[in-house]
């Protein structure tokens, strides 16, 4: 009896929390997306006009494509940086492993806005990089001043710690004796990595990819402060609908599209990977 109560409590509280703070707002967003706005007024007339606008407006498709490309590139770059870093921590970190991993979380002790503004100072015309270059007599690097490259640098900076932590945790639970076994059977270090280490840590890598890709899709701050005139991404355009333009219904439709896009992206990745071979144990015995 007591166990039943405990189970009900442990599962019930998070369920109520998720229903109240995730499912209900999401449903209200879906409903709002089928209404329309007129000069800051919500008109409760059921229609698909917002979705038609998104599909045919051109601009919104452009924002989505820009965001998909940006999120994909940023996630890949983050994975490429995070893997050697995590691997090095595992191999050479010794008793400081945890400390080194936690060091990556230090930037999270400050707010995201502060970090982006600090980066704006670093990459901008008066920033450290360009100031040093100009002091040395070189021309400033215009491609890092208010461009999509600057946005990408900002997003990698924002989400790299998450990716490093996830891959580190994956490697921490990986049995390194399997690499020794592969080498004993004649595999080169590269082959042991490609055929043993990488596939058995692929699930952790995919989690890291998803945890970077999804927030990048809806990124608002980095493109706003770093992106420049050509740097508008989907999340920034969506935030605009809920802010100054007051076109909430269109913004809600953009949110629904973003939600569905994120799910499809995760499913596509999931469908192409054999989870049982990636070190994932959540499916039970096959």
């Amino acid at each position, binding site marked *: 009896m007591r166990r039943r109560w405990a189970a009900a409590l442990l599962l019930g509280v998070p369920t109520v929390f998720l229903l109240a703070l995730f499912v209900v707002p999401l449903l209200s967003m879906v409903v709002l997306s089928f209404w329309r706005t*007129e*000069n*800051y007024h919500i008109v409760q007339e059921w229609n698909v006009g917002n979705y038609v606008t998104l599909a045919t407006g*051109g*601009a919104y498709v452009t924002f989505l494509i820009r965001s998909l490309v940006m999120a994909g590139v940023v996630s890949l770059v983050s994975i490429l940086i995070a893997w050697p870093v995590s691997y090095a921590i595992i191999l050479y970190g010794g008793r400081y492993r945890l400390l080194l991993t936690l060091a990556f979380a230090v930037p999270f002790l400050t707010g995201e806005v502060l970090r982006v503004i600090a980066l704006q100072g670093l990459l901008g*015309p008066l920033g450290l990089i360009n100031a040093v270059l100009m002091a040395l007599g070189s021309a400033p690097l215009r491609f890092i001043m208010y461009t999509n490259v600057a946005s990408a640098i900002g997003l990698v900076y924002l989400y790299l710690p998450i990716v490093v932590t996830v891959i580190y945790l994956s490697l921490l639970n990986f049995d390194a004796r399997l690499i020794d076994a592969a080498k004993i059977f004649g595999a080169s270090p590269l082959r042991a990595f490609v055929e043993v280490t990488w596939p058995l840590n692929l699930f952790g890598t995919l989690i890291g990819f998803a945890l970077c890709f999804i927030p990048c899709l809806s990124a608002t701050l980095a493109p706003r402060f770093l992106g420049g*005139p050509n740097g508008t991404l989907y999340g920034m355009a969506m935030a605009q609908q809920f802010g*100054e333009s007051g*076109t909430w219904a269109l913004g809600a439709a953009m949110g629904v599209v973003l939600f569905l896009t994120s799910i499809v992206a995760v499913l596509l990745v999931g469908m192409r990977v054999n989870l049982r071979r990636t070190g994932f144990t959540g499916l039970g015995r096959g």
Partner: protein
Amino acid sequence: MKPLQPISAAASTPDIQDGTPRTGISVDRRDVLKTIAAGALVTLAAPYVRPASAAPSQLRALMWEGYLLPDVIAAFEEKHGVKFAPTFFDGNSEAYNKLRVGGTKDFDLVQADGFWPSLYYREKLIRDVDYAKIPATEHLFPVFKPAEFKLLTDAATGVDFGVPFCWGSYGITYNTAEMPADKANSIACLFDPAYAGRLSTSARFEENIALAGILVATRMGTIDKPRPNGKPFNPYDLTDEELAGVEKLLIEQKALLLTRYQDNATLAQLLESGAVIAAPEFAQVYRQLLAKKAKGEIDTTFAHTLVPREGGLGWVDTWLVSSGVPDGAMLDVCQSFIDTMITPETMKKIALASGCSTTIDIRSLSTPEEQALYLMDRTGELSKMYMFDQPSSTEKWERVWSRMQAA
């Protein structure tokens, strides 16, 4: 006086539910749950429930951050025994959205500019104010008194619903060594390919479209022609042809911009460094740069075009009282606060802190340089400006802005 009955005595009342009298404490689970639920409800509701006659304990304002003066606020809090709780916003539309979704119950005081207060009043988001209860209004420049300044008076009833406190334009600040004054005197300088990569504009979509709209209407020759709505030209009410011209112009401008600045600090840095040589702004950055120049911190000379030759955008910031404020003590505190904020001494501090021109005559407190810098003798130019307004169709304007951003 009858002493209170001890809890233990109440609890020891015999319980005869099951027919067997019992003494001692007996607690029913349902009663406990009911008590906890009632207690929780009362705790949750307490901050929102108070009798109408109670003295106000909090004054909640929806305002621009730049007008916050901590020392003045602290003195007001002490004098009136209320806690001042500000919430900040950037653009009028953002504040309007907040008010519309129940904000009249969340805020007592509101700030807005241009035509927005009259929209708020029409939609019953704000209420009337009594100038007699705000004696500092006697220091308003004549052009801002209700007799001349009609934007804060309801035409039908004649009641006043706002008090102006700062004013300015959305003029052009420029580097005099890089851009000649005759060029900077036209909105066209912000679209001139000769300055590619060295221009910047704000990220505010309404003002970008409206300013470009003045230039487009001037070039199309429609600015002085009769309008479809029968009213004089208003850059916030553009025809579809004018909007198409604006979109084309803004797309062309995009290639010329280094960035759209998000805040005054960024713009000041860009202008100081020489990365940007001209940008439209509220003259606040211009005044900061002049102050730096006077102190010898920078060498560059900047100037500011208040009203370009095609016409410019202007604004008058106002204090308003939310419609959620009832007559009585709360209204008195609100009006008292407005009065405190617009006294000449406070307005002088606000001018220096925010870099804005004041609607209150503070010439007796200012040096000749300050009088020139804060345009104290140029209040008459307000009549040449188009006041900040609500776009005629936010949906159409949003499409124009999005297409420009995606182009």
